[in-house]
């Protein structure tokens, strides 16, 4: 075994860049997204405008939302890099930090640390058909992706979106969903498990069923991006197998408990890979060879 030299590298200027220091931001707007009020979207503006440039990201990446006195939570970035002047995150109320965040108000100061992790593989997706399959509140980085693709519409083939929630009131970004429905350059397939509203004019049924009916046929040029609760992923995967999607054409985004977000604190690993630094985006082909520790 050869160990690295005792002497440190010559070029140590970067050591002063502290990867744990969040960029200060101000909450610009808070939107309650769902009827159970458990999901709110936070729109943040960087206090130093230069930080917005430093926070250059792509859809699929995440950041640590940092509240002084409470802590940090890793959350997928819901805004698209094509939206300028702000960043958006949709947060489910679960624990200490997210509950505190839900009680904060516009104007409050907090921090954002990132962008962290790898985005969806946008280089590989260029010129390809993309089918987005999302369920519940895991639609945040998918929103980012849809806006990004529509802004660069000529770079992609067919775009299809299958998005389901328990009820119409539990869908995120409803106004945007409706606007995308009206377009002819994106195939929208919104569904709910059940609707009491007699005027509900979209699909009713679980995501796997709607996927089977609406997903485009598999070929080398078609990629599926899936984000959702484990139960949805469990039942959607056989459907994609049946449709003939190769496991290297199925892209997933994982989550695990995190602290540092930069591959150092040691808790989010799946085998030798860290969800934070080596993920959170993995292909199903990659995941097939890894422990199921997520």
């Amino acid at each position, binding site marked *: 075994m050869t160990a690295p030299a*005792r002497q440190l590298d010559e070029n140590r200027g970067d050591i002063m*860049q502290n990867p744990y*220091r969040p960029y200060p931001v101000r909450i610009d707007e808070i939107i309650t997204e769902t009827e159970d009020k458990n999901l709110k979207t936070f729109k943040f503006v960087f206090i130093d405008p230069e930080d917005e440039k430093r926070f250059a990201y792509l859809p699929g990446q995440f950041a640590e939302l*940092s509240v002084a*006195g409470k802590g940090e939570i890793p959350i997928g970035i819901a805004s698209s890099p094509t939206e300028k002047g702000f960043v958006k995150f949709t947060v489910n109320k679960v624990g200490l930090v997210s509950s505190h965040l839900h009680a904060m108000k516009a104007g409050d100061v907090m921090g954002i640390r990132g962008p962290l992790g790898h985005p969806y593989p946008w280089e590989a997706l260029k010129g390809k058909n993309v089918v987005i399959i999302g369920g519940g509140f895991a639609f945040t980085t998918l929103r980012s992706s849809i806006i990004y693709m529509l802004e660069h519409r000529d770079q992609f083939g067919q775009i299809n979106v299958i998005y389901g929630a328990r009820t119409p009131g539990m869908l995120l970004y409803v106004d945007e969903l409706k606007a995308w429905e009206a377009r002819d350059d994106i195939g929208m397939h919104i569904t709910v498990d059940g609707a009491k509203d007699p005027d509900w004019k979209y699909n009713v049924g679980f995501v796997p069923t709607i996927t089977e009916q609406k997903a485009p046929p598999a070929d080398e040029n078609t990629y599926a991006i899936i984000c959702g609760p484990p139960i949805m992923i469990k039942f959607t995967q056989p459907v994609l197998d049946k449709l003939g999607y190769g496991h290297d054409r199925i892209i997933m985004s994982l989550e695990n408990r995190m*602290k540092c977000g930069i591959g150092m604190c040691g808790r989010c*690993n799946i085998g030798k890979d860290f969800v934070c630094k080596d993920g959170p985006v993995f292909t199903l082909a990659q995941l097939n060879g890894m422990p199921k520790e997520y």
Partner: protein
Amino acid sequence: MKFVKIDEKQWAEGIGKLKSGYRVFGPVKEGKDHEFRELTGDASPDMAFSNTRLSPKSVVYPQSEVMFEYTTDESRPDHHILKEPRRDDTPRAVIGIRPCDALSFLLVRRNFDSPEYKDPYWLRNYEATTFVGYGCNDPCATCFCTSAGSAPHDTQGLDALVVDRDGGYAAKAITEKGEALMKAAGWTDAMDEAEAEALFADRAAAAEKKITRQVATDKLAEKPSMDLYDAPFWEDVAFSCINCGTCTYLCPTCWCFDIQDECRGCEGVRTRNWDSCMAPLFTAHGSGHNPRGEKVQRVRQRFMHKLKYYVDKYGEGIQCVGCGRCVRSCPVNIDIRKVCDMMNAYDPEAANDCACPTT
């Protein structure tokens, strides 16, 4: 001045002189064990020790360290903005570190000094520290450093190495940092090079002969990770484990940490604290889901990390220096040497016949 001799008096005076330029850490007897402590006042290192109970990792990587300070007082213009605390960058000297422990810093550095990110806290502390090793003459029965890339007189990770000599010590500078420390201590009494080299070589050879337990690590890299992960012996290895976390606490190469905010009134700090993969909360999701909720999953994680994931990630051997602390202090006698041998010898084809570890 590569080799110097230091008599007892020069040694004691040198330690005293160092304290004007360095924060000096050394082994001190506490109860029946030795620990590394900062030597203040006229305290001197107690060199009559085999190894300390805890590793000296805390000199570079404190169990709890403030990362940021802030105020939540909204009448202050900088409220809720995180700032780095004023740092103590005084040079540090660790006197009497064993070669196995010195190597551990090089292993841990791969985690904190990655191509993508640099951990400024660990790196600044590390850069500020000079490591003066103390060659081991009497390795413990639990030591297996020679199977883990080190040796009782190995110099990896050291700035200087000290060995016993009649009436005192002989020392050799390994880096410029080590040379500077020896100069600051006044240890400049040059020693005949041939004599010194013979002394160092004899001491090293004699000590190495005393390490009888070898651990096999040569096949770990070639084993498919999922074969080892799915091996049947994990239930047996984990059976007696009580998840106390002693192994991770003592280990010089365990680096996992937690980050917590703490406030008193409006004044707060963000700290990082050692954490342990043995604790269920380490991986528990906010939803209640826990990818390593079972004890056997956590025990497997600890050994797989040290003996397989690290091996695969860096291609530089195992994440263990063979100090034997976890073997000595485990309350239920789990032995990393046996686990490593089992992993190294594991053949899934043959495993169907017998899942029992050969203990």
